């Protein structure tokens, strides 16, 4: 008989504490004397009552039920699950970075502003853009920030009819969602049989109402949009702007810069390419770079350098305003800066070369066992289709679950939407050939099992702490919090 992992509330016992506060050194005024009765809480919040060891054991047990990059291979496509350097963590915890208040006088935070300014300079060079803001908190936040700037740009030109944002059918879901939140209508452009944006379709959808085209390059199939300059001129001639989704920047460091490809705005995911850890879902950081004509619209304040040191420039009359309180996810930016400075120009070049080498190696070795919908060099990631296995009754979801038994995090599955039974695999450059080979062997074994012993795959996982979970009931009868019995 199995036993459920207890919730922290279930091990709580009145009379235990896990904290240590100083003695009160001012008069112990009774709260009832200073706060009106209606505003004093009657029912106490049901928070746990546990000792420090209880807490540590609880979370250690939970951590053992979680797979991170440090636990094993994590080829989750488009998420760039590379190694998170430990040095980054130490630097971010330095007291002068971790314990400064955002509203301190500028002269007391010169070190922080210098780091931000220098990170902006590095990101400008890496992306080929003219200015960078570090304010957005994550990739999607950066997308929306960039689109708001494009909107402000058009409006500053008296151009109010540009209401549409063009997004390829292979795009991340955040692209159309960000366009909506920024007040635009989304128009989809089709991919052609080679997995690239269909230029004829692009010409058809572009027009005087086009505000921008959002593009990931290489795209979510891991393929480089080789007609990028032609696409740029189609959009620019129509008066639109070109937006670069930097989710896949790991594929082109030192090989091609968005600024040189004709992009006007770019967001980066510092938690992907630049090793801010993913944190179980965040925090991230989503800086946005722009070409010169969009600089006036940057969110304010802008970290700047003057005669008397670094300062926050609030005098930006055309700015779209603030997108976040304070100046962005500084702690993540510190980690990304540490990483960039640890790699240097030759290191960053090697990052992309090895990321692409690893992806192509895996793709070629697996092509015999799974369908390869786009047979050409990939960049940092590639997609396979589980069509062949589906005919045997084994779905891509089953393959993903079976991979868990081998100690791997599966690839991204069922995305991009244009590939049937899709598996999107991104190995990253920090994985060794031995790791790739072992994963490839597991994938080959699963392909064989699909033919010879499909139940083995269909009933997977077999070794995890829980088996497949009932997601339907979870959504139909949601239990979203613990209730004391």
């Amino acid at each position, binding site marked *: 008989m199995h036993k459920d992992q207890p*919730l922290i509330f279930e091990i709580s016992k009145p009379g235990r*504490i*896990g*904290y240590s506060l100083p003695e009160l050194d*001012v008069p112990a005024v009774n*709260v009832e004397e200073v*706060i009106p009765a*209606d*505003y004093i*809480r009657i029912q106490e919040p049901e*928070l746990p009552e546990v000792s*420090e060891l209880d807490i540590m054991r609880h979370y250690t047990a*939970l*951590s053992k*039920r*979680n797979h991170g990059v440090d636990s094993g291979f994590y080829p*989750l496509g488009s998420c760039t699950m590379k190694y*998170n*350097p430990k040095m980054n963590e130490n630097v971010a915890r330095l007291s002068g970075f*971790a*314990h400064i*208040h955002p509203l301190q*006088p500028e002269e*007391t*935070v010169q070190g*922080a502003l210098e780091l931000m300014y220098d990170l902006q300079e*590095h990101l400008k060079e890496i992306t080929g853009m003219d200015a960078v803001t570090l304010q957005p908190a*994550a990739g999607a*936040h950066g997308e929306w920030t960039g689109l708001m700037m494009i909107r402000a740009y058009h409006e500053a030109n008296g151009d109010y009819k540009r209401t549409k944002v063009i997004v390829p059918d292979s795009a991340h879901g955040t692209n159309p969602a960000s366009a909506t*939140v920024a*007040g635009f*209508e989304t128009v989809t452009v089709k991919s052609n049989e080679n997995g690239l944006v269909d230029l004829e379709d692009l010409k058809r959808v572009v027009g005087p109402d086009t505000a921008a085209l959002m593009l990931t390059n290489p795209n979510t199939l891991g393929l*480089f949009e*080789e007609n990028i300059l032609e696409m740029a001129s189609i959009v620019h001639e129509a008066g639109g702007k070109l937006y670069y989704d930097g989710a896949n920047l790991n594929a082109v460091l030192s090989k*091609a810069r968005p600024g040189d490809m004709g992009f006007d705005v770019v967001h980066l995911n510092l938690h992907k390419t630049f090793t801010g850890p*993913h*944190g*179980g*879902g*965040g*925090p991230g950081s989503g800086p946005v770079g722009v070409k010169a004509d969009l600089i006036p619209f940057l969110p304010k304040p802008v970290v700047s350098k003057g005669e008397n040191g670094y300062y926050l420039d609030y005098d930006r009359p055309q700015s779209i305003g603030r997108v*976040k*309180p304070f*100046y962005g996810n500084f*702690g993540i930016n510190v980690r990304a800066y*540490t990483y960039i*400075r640890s790699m240097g120009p*030759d290191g960053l070049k090697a990052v992309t070369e*090895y990321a*692409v080498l690893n992806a192509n190696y895996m793709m070629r070795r697996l092509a015999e066992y799974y369908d390869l919908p786009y047979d050409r*060099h990939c960049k940092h990631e590639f997609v396979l289709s589980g069509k062949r296995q589906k005919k045997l009754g084994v779905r891509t979801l089953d393959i993903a679950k079976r991979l*868990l038994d081998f100690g791997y995090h599966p690839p991204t599955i069922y995305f991009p939407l244009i590939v049937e039974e899709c598996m999107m695999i991104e190995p990253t450059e*920090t994985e060794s*050939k031995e790791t790739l080979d072992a994963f490839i062997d597991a994938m080959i074994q699963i392909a064989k099992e699909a033919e010879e012993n499909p139940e083995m795959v269909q009933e997977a996982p077999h070794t995890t702490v829980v*088996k497949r*979970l*009932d997601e339907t009931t*979870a*959504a139909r009868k*949601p239990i979203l919090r613990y209730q004391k019995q």
Partner: protein
Amino acid sequence: MLHRYLPMTEEDKQEMLKAIGVESIDELFSDIPESVRFKGEYNIKKAKSEPELMKELTELAAKNADIKRYTSFLGAGVYDHYIPVIVDHVISRSEFYTAYTPYQPEISQGELQAIFEFQTMICELTGMDVANSSMYDGGTALAEAAMLSAAHTKNKKVLVSKAVHPEYRDVLKTYAKGPGIEIVEIPFKNGVTDLEALKAEMNEQVACVIVQYPNFFGQIEPLKDIETIAHTGKSMFVVASNPLALGILTPPGQFGADIVVGDAQAFGIPTQFGGPHCGYFAVKSALMRKIPGRLIGQTTDEEGRRGFVLTLQAREQHIRRDKATSNICSNQALNALAASVAMTALGKKGVKEMATMNIQKALYAKKAFVENGFEVPFTGPFFNEFVVKLNKPIKEVNKQLLEKGIIGGYDLGRDYPELENHMLVAVTELRTKEEIDMLVKELGDSHA
């Protein structure tokens, strides 16, 4: 090249190239047209070794005046609180911080359960039915609450109190431009939302009323009175709240709030120059299927074991795409974990004790100012912040305080011209009586 983060050997490389069927790595980039190919290397700083870079960055950090060396009375939405040491030990478990969004529940039960516990704790503190797994910060959470209200009520006018954090209001104004929401600011009177002014602006076209509790000036807003005005027509009642204060104050949920948002920075998250912190978002169950961001739900596996999954995903951008009402994807999961550990360590007793200490210390400080002849313009009940009027510019005063090792309070004149020479003083449980006395002494004769 040899680098500690790159395991590729020359031998591996050759074998892999051979398996692919190409001569060189360069060939793999042949699909990038010459015209856009970047040649050479980035013009950025050369790599430094670990010890060299550690030294450089340690020195850079030391250029900042951190609030562990200085005595800080700065709050304004970000506070210097006790962080139980255990918090950093838990979030340093790399199974947590090197994982991503728990898309594969069978190998993500740890993260999923930890966040399910976070959702529960936020519900307990706010008095709400459902809390999500976190937002970027309090400011964007507030903006998303306005967007949700507008989408839900199909109204396009938002009333926000001027006693709400100025930077939160700035973020709200930026977000509002997207769907074309009109933002109307309601003035304050004696440091709290002016009820008459609110009534005057209230009508059937309002999507929501937003106030902060405690508000930007530290004052406790009369939520009971505001709620009756806010719930006119379809309008929703949105409260931004410091969750630590809710350890002692009546939760907004009990005053009929429809949405409660805020930042959990007070629980275990360092100030770190303003981010990353931890936004939270809580709603009444009627809005459960409209809440932005990720939600963790409890379920069972095939063999009846309890387990947790991402749920109600039909709300989210990766399913709804351009029909989504929020574009949030990455959130602040690791900080939600930090906040959970801190809320757990403090527990039922500690949260109340710490919240009470904030009130007691701030009250002592306020009395000390009053007794020394300073004017404290707002007279209502307050949490851990209050406003003091001085007779000279705050910027100047803060410069002098800095020489004594004190980081003074926030200069309210930056956002409120009518509050020129007014300082917002924050006093948390970490400030000692001695430090408070020193602040009052150093300000000496700068009372109005």
